[in-house]
């Protein structure tokens, strides 16, 4: 079996080498890829969309429809992890609690779990050491991470960045809280329900802007249609439309990151985990 695999790999490799023979040479300015569609985008991006970062203009405007479905792919991934991993069953073993004032750990039988109180906090069965410094540093760091994430989303017009990258950083800030504290703290800040609704809201913003363009009398995702409600000219409307969809992308990516992390690290129970 291994030999067959090797033969196939060598054969496909040889075919790949054979096919490169007719490729345009490396970095050739006259190659078809650099003179046809790409050249048009490079030349027209700024006059047509007023977005200095051509990558963003292609990604979110010329081929914005693809990006909407890429965001949907992320949404599907989040939903897929949810349906495959999530277990709606309570853990049926014992729990551990810490007395906040003294730091004493208590082992409590499963049928004697007390009501919520401010004097005891639940800790994970796989006990993680209580570390004041790590906890507080991460807590203080989180808002700065989030601020940077917003910058990355908003600055996609001018520099590398945008909704996907910014969304991941936003999600990372919440995951940081979950890692440094525990999953229940993170879920207390942003619950599973909120995460799932945000997941849908983000892509809904993207596709909703597209549908709004139809309602305003132009084609799907033709941001120029928004000029009337944004009180700008058509080119500036394109730039603002791109910003709108980037925000949608950011929200979905953030929520999906959090959801996948929560489901994976808690084996789908969403109560204990790193």
């Amino acid at each position, binding site marked *: 079996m291994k030999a067959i695999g090797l033969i196939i790999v060598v054969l496909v490799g040889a075919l790949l080498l054979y096919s490169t023979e007719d490729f345009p040479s490396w970095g050739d300015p006259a190659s078809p890829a650099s003179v046809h569609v*790409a050249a048009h985008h490079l030349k027209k991006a700024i006059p047509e969309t007023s977005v200095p970062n051509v990558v963003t203009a292609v990604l979110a405007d010329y081929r914005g429809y*693809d990006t909407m479905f890429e965001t949907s792919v992320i949404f599907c991934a989040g939903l897929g992890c949810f349906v495959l991993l999530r277990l709606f069953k309570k853990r049926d073993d014992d729990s551990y609690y810490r007395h906040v004032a003294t730091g004493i750990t208590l082992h409590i039988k499963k049928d004697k779990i007390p009501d919520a109180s401010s004097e005891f906090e639940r800790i994970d069965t796989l006990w993680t050491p209580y570390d004041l410094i790590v906890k507080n540093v991460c807590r203080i760091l989180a808002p700065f991470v989030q601020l940077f994430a917003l910058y990355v989303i908003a600055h996609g017009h001018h520099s590398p960045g945008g909704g996907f990258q910014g969304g991941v950083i936003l999600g990372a800030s919440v995951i940081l809280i979950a890692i440094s504290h525990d999953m229940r703290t993170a879920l207390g800040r942003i619950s599973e329900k909120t995460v799932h*609704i945000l997941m849908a809201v983000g892509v*809904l913003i993207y596709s909703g802007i597209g549908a709004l363009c139809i309602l305003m009398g132009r084609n799907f995702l033709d941001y120029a249609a928004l000029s009337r409600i944004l009180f700008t000219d058509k080119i500036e409307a394109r730039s603002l439309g791109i910003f709108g969809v980037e925000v949608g992308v950011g929200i979905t990516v953030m929520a999906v990151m959090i959801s996948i992390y929560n489901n994976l690290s808690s084996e789908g129970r969403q109560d204990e985990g790193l």
Partner: protein
Amino acid sequence: MNHHYPVLIVTLPLLFAFVVSGTAWVKKSLCFPLTVAGMGLSAWFSICLLGQVATTGPVEYRLGGWAMPWGIGYRVDTLNGMVIAVVTVLAFINLIATRKTVVQETPDKTGAFYSLYLLFVVGLTGILVTGDLFNLYVLLEVASLTSYALIGMGNGRAPMSALNYLFLGTLGGCFYLLGVGYLYIMTGSLNMADVATLLPPLFKSSAIVMAFIFCMAGVSIKMAFFPLHMWLPNAYGNAPTAAGSLIAPLMTKVMVYVLIRLMLTIFSVDFVFVILKMGPPMVWMSSLAIAAGAVFALAQKNLKRMLCYIIVSEIGYMMGGAWLGNNAGMTGAVLHIFNDAIMTLCLFLCAGSIYYRTQGLEMERLKGLFRKMPVTMACFVAGALSIIGVPPTCGFFSKWYLISGGLAAGQYAFVAALIFSSLVNAILFFRVIEISYYGDFETHNAHGSSGAAVMESPASMLVPLIIVSTGLVVVGLYTGGIVNHLIHPIVLKAGFSG
């Protein structure tokens, strides 16, 4: 409004999918009606679009308002118009028919299930409607990812089969993407029509030949063309009922459409049949696929797995027809996409209806079912007759075109394989019918479910099932109209002589 049809077919279910997924956390009972609304609107617009395309010719749509090669464009002619219509209508019927099985099999995740259901249909319609090679890949990703998740929701070994499917499916997607990458390097464009005009001077180039081979390999994996079918029986057999009867009839047919689109519109008939001369070897492969699928189906003890191997065999029909390289063969292949989707759905719905009552589809559990579930089994017989190819049903007509195409091309092995598989299908289905007609339910049912509990499925399952099985005959009777108005214009335009 009229000119927005192509985009509405794709984006309305998309919008509804997100709304359903959010609503699931607020009010669960709204999920199903919202899904029905999204799916119904999509099906309605796709029928309107087919009417529009059939009367006024191909329709184009510019997304984002950008002119064709610069932005993404949709292009609908009668070929994809009719496949879109059949996909959305069948998905709608399946949605209605399987409501109770979804509640039975995935009770606490119905919201997510319906959201994935809609997104899967979005993926398929997006693949069908698009005129852009890369957009096709993105939608292929949407359809694949959602089908992995839907299949993984099943019981038992379903997650394992989904993982297996994921590995092979991703490989298929990568091959297709690599092919598109080659095309982009050589032409600098992703628009199908634009690429088609830029390609002819490059036909002798090795890179273009490789691009074609990669696209074909990717699509063949995705459509489970023998011997690349290994993922299919487990994935479709272990999926939840509603997901199985959605994905099995539609996904492979859509991939056959992609193959035909690549052959006819992008690479052109000249390149495929005259320059590469790939027709005869591929017809041989298809004959092999037909025979192998039929033989494997004979070995199955489970009804659903038997149906899965029949799909493998049917893929061989369509591949063979497409590669025959003549008018009748191509017409038969396109017609068979249309017919096979309907008859596979009919059989899978019957299997789902039986499973809903018996909780198992092993052959011995089918004993005495004709008395317990007469309507379901009558519809099963209709579907079976169509797969075998008995005249008034639609399966006969596409098989007729395929056989006459095979004779015209002198491919007697393909004709022999078709006749062989028809005979095997007859044996397969009459075995099932014999067991369920003559077997005595009470005495032979060794498994836990008591005989008294098994009765006819609820009307919400039977009515869609009856509609589909009458559809088999109606479509069969209208074959002439479908071929003359929808298929022939495409086949003749591609360069096959009448």
